[in-house]
Each structure stands twice: as structure tokens, then as C-alpha cells.
């Protein structure tokens, strides 16, 4: 099937192109990028008033399969991702069982085969993510693992983390750190600060995150490994990462849309719906995250999409699990908060969800040019959406953005040359 995208504004961060171009897609590839392409047998897609960007990449999602298929599945999550403009996602390994052997990596890939988008499994650093013995990294890579992480918990043992950074150099993949000193954060519910004192909720000091990032950066220096820091939430974390980059330590990092959109003020209003780990911080941190995205210290925006069933979240905030869904609100928040409120160009905003994660992970996607795989997302940035029960198609609706009006509607998602959203 041929597709011809017409009248759209091509925004390709990899080539820094931001100009009106038509795009012709044939046999799953981009066959032509040019002005006023004429093709009589292609299906036409009118992208007037829209930006046409490479298919979005989310390097941090939780699809809960295997183990909690009642919450979300690989296919179900993939559909939500397609609706949200994503053509590639990386699933985190903290499932039940933890993805720590080759068979499990293959299982995830197998499950994803009949889904609409590309799924890249991240495998565990340690067996069972217990933080002690290394998982069989070579086997996991052969099975198709894209990176390693014990996400959900830190590798508390510094020697184990050292070995992981060292051993994984063979495969040239990043170790993704969930940076949290649990001896400092344990039992905490929200950011430690005025709001936690006021609400009488146990705080999680930002230092729990920053200490671990500092340790991991130093271990990366020691081992010459590759470190990617997941879900950065605090200003201090960015200071440490910026310092590491100046010293040419191989470190990259991601933040999530909620960290540039909300502060811990949201807890009083949204209770457990605003409970995630790391927690929402202060306005100073939120501003620093936006600056970090602007100056490039933060390369990636990942959602940390974490579905939880209503009855799990509808509890006393202390008992409810951490995490919010993030896929469906990602594009609207990027456009509303970064582009419209903070003056980001589309190029600067969308490199964080296209070429940058692909470069970190070694995925040959995330750009638009002739010959490339046809992963393309078409977004109307001026269309208003309301985050409500109808807008959220995910069966889990755990989001603090419920009721918010935002800009940015995903009109089409094309993956490997096929329209995967709107659903056929």
C-alpha cells in the first residue's frame, strides 16, 4: 500500500528540517520526501495545519505483562501507545516474573508481534531485579533486549552496579538506573518539603535520587560504561548530570512529562493520582527540568507510563501504589507546556521523543528521510483536547491531568508504513 502525506509541516529533528514537504510511503519505507508529490494510486492523507514528525519513541513504559494482564497487556498498551502517537516503546522488566532470562525477552517480542507498534524489551540488570547477581546479559541481548534496568528499584549494592556497567560494555547498551537510595527514601510518599510537612505525609528527599545519580555517575567514570538515568525529577540531579557530561562521562538521561508540568502542590488536590516515584518536586525543580530540556542536559522525554487499576489507586494515599499513566497525555503536555508555554521549537521538543532515544538505544528509527522506515506521526498542535474518561482509552485512568484542557491532537500514527491510528 502506498500513502501520500500532503500539505503537512515536516518536523524532523535528526536533519533539523522544519518546512512543508510531502512524504510518499511505499512498502513500509519512505520513498520520497519532496514538494508537491503527485501520485495517483496512493492513499492521500491531508496533513494541513499539522506537524509531521518521526514516529514517537517512549523508552520507558510498564505494560504489566507477564503477571498483571488484568491491569494492562502488551497488545493493549501498544494500542494506547499508537493512539498517543508512539510507534516504538521500551517495556520495563519489573513484571512478574521479572524479565531476566532470554525466554522471557522472547515472550515479550512474541506477544508484541501481532500488535500495532514496535516493542523493545528492556531486561533486568540482576536476577529477579534483586540487586545481587547479574542476569545473563549476553543471553538477554541475543534474545532481543535493548538495554538493562532494574527499574522500580535501585541496584543498592555498588559493586553489583559497577560490574553491570563494566560487563555491559561488551554490548554497547546503556544501563538504565532507577536512582533512589532506599535507605533515605523508604516509607516516603511525596517530595520532602513544605507540602509534605504541611500534609503530614512522609517525605522523600530529593537527595535520595541525587545521591544515587552521583554514585552511578562515578561508577560510570570508573568503568567507562554507559549510564542512562531514568525519570530525573530534581534540579540537583541535573546539576550532577551536567557536571558528569562536562567530564565526558557517558551519561544520558530522561525526564517525564509530569515533572515539567506539575509540582507537589498537586498532591493536596489529586491525592494518590499524583503519587509517583520519584515524586513531583517543587516549582524550582520543574523550572530546572524545563531548562535541562532546553539546554540539552536532558536528551529524552519518556512517560514512565504506569497503569494501576482504579481499586488500587482508590485508597488512602499512603497505601496506593506509585505511578501514573502517561502515554495519552504526553503529546498534549509537550505541546502545551514546552512549545506553547515555554517557547520550545517543535524541533527541540520532538527530538526528545524521536531521534534522541533512538541514538541512545541504537535503534535505526526516529528520523524522516528517503529510504528510512516509515514510522510517522501526524499531530494537530492547535487542536484542543480535554483529558476525560472518553479521551483516555487506557483501561486504567490513573492520571492527575484528568479534566485538564490541553493542546495537541494526534491525528495519525503510521508504523512500518501502515496506519495504526486511527484504528481501522
Amino acid at each position, binding site marked *: 500500500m502506498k500513502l501520500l502525506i500532503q500539505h503537512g509541516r515536516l518536523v524532523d529533528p535528526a536533519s533539523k528540517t522544519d518546512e512543508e514537504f510531502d512524504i510518499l510511503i511505499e512498502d513500509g519505507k519512505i520513498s520520497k520526501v519532496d514538494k508537491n508529490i503527485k501520485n495517483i494510486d496512493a492513499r492521500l492523507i491531508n496533513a494541513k495545519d499539522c506537524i509531521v514528525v518521526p514516529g514517537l519513541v517512549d523508552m520507558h513504559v510498564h505494560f504489566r505483562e507477564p503477571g498483571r494482564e488484568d491491569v494492562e497487556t502488551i497488545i493493549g498498551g501498544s494500542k494506547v501507545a499508537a493512539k498517543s502517537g508512539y510507534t516504538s516503546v521500551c517495556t520495563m522488566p519489573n513484571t512478574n516474573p521479572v524479565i531476566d532470562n532470554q525466554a522471557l525477552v522472547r515472550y515479550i517480542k512474541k506477544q508484541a508481534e501481532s500488535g500495532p507498534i514496535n516493542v523493545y524489551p528492556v531486561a533486568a540488570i540482576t536476577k529477579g531485579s534483586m540487586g545481587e547477581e547479574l542476569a545473563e546479559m549476553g543471553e538477554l541481548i541475543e534474545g532481543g533486549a535493548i538495554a538493562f534496568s532494574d527499574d522500580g528499584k535501585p541496584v543498592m549494592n555498588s559493586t553489583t552496579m559497577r560490574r553491570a556497567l563494566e560487563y555491559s560494555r561488551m554490548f554497547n547498551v546503556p544501563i538504565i538506573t532507577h536512582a533512589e537510595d532506599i535507605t533515605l527514601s523508604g516509607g516516603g510518599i511525596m517530595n520532602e518539603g*513544605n507540602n509534605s510537612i504541611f500534609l503530614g505525609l512522609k517525605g522523600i528527599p530529593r537527595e535520595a535520587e541525587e545521591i544515587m545519580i552521583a554514585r552511578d555517575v562515578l561508577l560510570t567514570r570508573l568503568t567507562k560504561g554507559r549510564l542512562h538515568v531514568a525519570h530525573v525529577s530534581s534540579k540537583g540531579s541535573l546539576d550532577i548530570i551536567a557536571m558528569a557530561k562536562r567530564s565526558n562521562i557517558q551519561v544520558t538521561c530522561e525526564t517525564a512529562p509530569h515533572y515539567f508540568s506539575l509540582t507537589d502542590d498537586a498532591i493536596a488536590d489529586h*491525592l494518590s493520582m499524583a503519587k509517583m516515584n520519584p515524586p513531583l518536586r517543587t516549582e524550582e525543580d520543574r523550572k530546572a527540568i524545563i531548562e535541562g530540556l532546553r539546554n540539552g542536559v536532558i536528551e529524552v522525554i519518556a512517560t514512565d507510563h504506569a497503569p494501576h487499576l482504579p481499586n488500587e489507586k482508590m485508597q*488512602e494515599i*499512603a497505601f496506593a501504589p506509585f505511578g501514573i499513566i502517561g502515554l495519552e497525555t504526553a503529546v498534549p503536555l509537550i505541546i502545551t507546556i514546552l512549545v506553547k508555554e515555554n517557547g520550545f521549537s517543535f524541533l527541540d521538543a520532538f527530538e526528545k521523543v524521536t531521534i534522541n532515544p533512538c541514538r541512545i538505544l541504537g535503534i535505526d528509527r526516529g528520523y524522516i528521510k528517503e529510504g528510512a522506515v516509515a514510522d510517522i506521526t501526524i499531530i494537530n498542535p492547535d487542536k484542543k483536547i480535554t483529558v476525560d474518561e472518553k479521551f483516555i482509552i487506557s483501561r486504567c485512568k490513573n492520571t492527575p491531568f484528568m479534566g485538564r484542557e490541553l493542546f495537541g491532537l494526534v491525528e495519525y500514527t503510521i508504523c512500518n508504513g501502515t496506519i495504526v491510528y486511527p484504528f481501522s
Partner: protein
Amino acid sequence: MSGLQRKDLLDIQSLTTEEILLICNSAKYFKALFTRSIKTVPILRGKTVCLLFYEPSTRTRISFELAAKRLSADLINIAVQTSSVVKGESLIDTVHTLEAYKADFIVMRHAASLAPHFLSRNIKSSVINAGDGNHAHPTQALLDAYSLMEKVGDIQGLHIGIVGDILHSRVARSDIEIFKRLGAKVSLIGPPTLVPDEFRMYGVDIYYEFDEILPNLDVINMLRIQRERQQGSFFPSIREYHKRFALTNDRLKRCKKDVIVMHPGPINRGIEIDDDVADSAHSIINEQVTNGVAVRMAIFYLLAGGTPLDEKEVE
């Protein structure tokens, strides 16, 4: 002005100063009933009050129970140990059950901060917070304010010291808010581990040396210190804590001669407060307990739509 224009009483922050004064003023009339031989009035006849206690409590539960009974309400008493909650029923489900019983008031004590706020958003009944985690204990704060007003008339300009484990105290948070709102100067006294700097946002002063501020205080509100804080390394030993922060007989001698001593109870004699200090003429600890019933009667009355009282109406 009519009664409280609100469904719930969750914290001091959400009350207006007028509402605080209305509650305290109304409490006065209910307290007057306590000297009569028949102490009940039919104000809540036909209404159902449910006490839902997820945490052990003696004085607060009994105080609410007595307040409801003196107003002639029907009472359901649910303590967590004897209910289906131990079988793992969620708060939401428990509450829907109570709603099916048509409880008009739910008085809730819970170890998790904000649990009553969560409850109040999901139920039509009036929710009264009887203490949530470290967050708030508004009825205690109201009875503390009332007790001080009763003793000295006006709280405005008083210098009130709150001493001890401020960090883990819902009483401290609610007291700070109500005392500040009513124009008092509030100082917090304790070690930095239990009095984090963030408390300065309330507009209070912080002292690590009790003896330094002692002679300036008009009121000293002592908080209960829990032994398990020692395990959390908040202080090294009860012995050292007592030496630095207990209200001892010796310290009392260095206070203003008409200093008022308060304690929300239950007291640890010999730990945060010495025996003879607790029983001295300065102490209003027992009066606080009596006033608690009157204040809670006033809260029930006003939440049920009662209008401001004058002497005659209670007669």
C-alpha cells in the same frame, strides 16, 4: 449568620476564622449543660453518628461518643479490630456500607494522612476528622483554643510554646494553625530532627534550647514523645530527651508565674512532663478533656445546620 456552611470538618486550614470563633462560642453553651443533672439535649435525635476508628484511641473516641450521646444521636462504634477491615475490605467499600446504613456523620480516625479527605470526596455523609496520620487533628485544636480562651479570654498576643515531636504530631500542626489564626505568637521547641525548618512556613519561631525561651512563654503545650522515635534515630535516648526538653519541676520554676501548661494526652509522666507539673495549678490538662466534649457537641450541632446560640436557647 447561620451554622457551618460545610459538609465536613477536615482541618483547621479549611475553616474561616469566623467559623472557628463560632464553634468556640457555641461550645460555651454546651459546656453549661454539664453541671445539670440531666446532661442530654435532643438536638441530634434521629441522626446517626458513626465512629470509624482505624487507630486505637481512648480519649478522642470517648469524647466524641459522649458528645453524640449528650445530643441524643444514635451511635455506631466501629473499631478496626472488630470490623471487616481486618479482612482486607478497602476504605471505599467500608464507607459505601456505612452510607447504606444512612449514617449522617462519620467521625474518622486514621493512621494515614488525608484519609478523611479521601473519604469525604466519596461520601454524602458529613465527615469529621478525629485525627489523620501526622496531618491534622482539628477538633483537638478547637478544644485547645477554646480551653485557652476560657482561661484567659483572648488568645491574641499570647506567646505559646509547643514542645516535642512536632514532625510526627497532627496536634502540633492543627494547633499552630489555630493559634496563629487567632493572633498568638507560636514558638516550636525540640531537636532539629523533630522540628524541621519547613515549619517556619507557618510563621513560627524554632528553638532548640527549651531553657532559652522558657521565661518568655505564656502557654506551654507539651506533646507526647514516643519511645519508638529513638529507634528511628530522631534522638539518642529518652534520658537525653528528658534532660533537654521535658517540662520538669525545675523548669516550671523558671517560667512566668501564671504560665499555663497544656497537654493533648495521653501523658507520659516522667518523660515529657514531670508528675507534679502535670498536677500543678498551672495545668489545664483535665479541663481540656472536659472541654473536648463541649467543643465536639458544638461541631455536631453546627454541622447539622444549627444556628448560633444564645443563653436562652440551650435552656
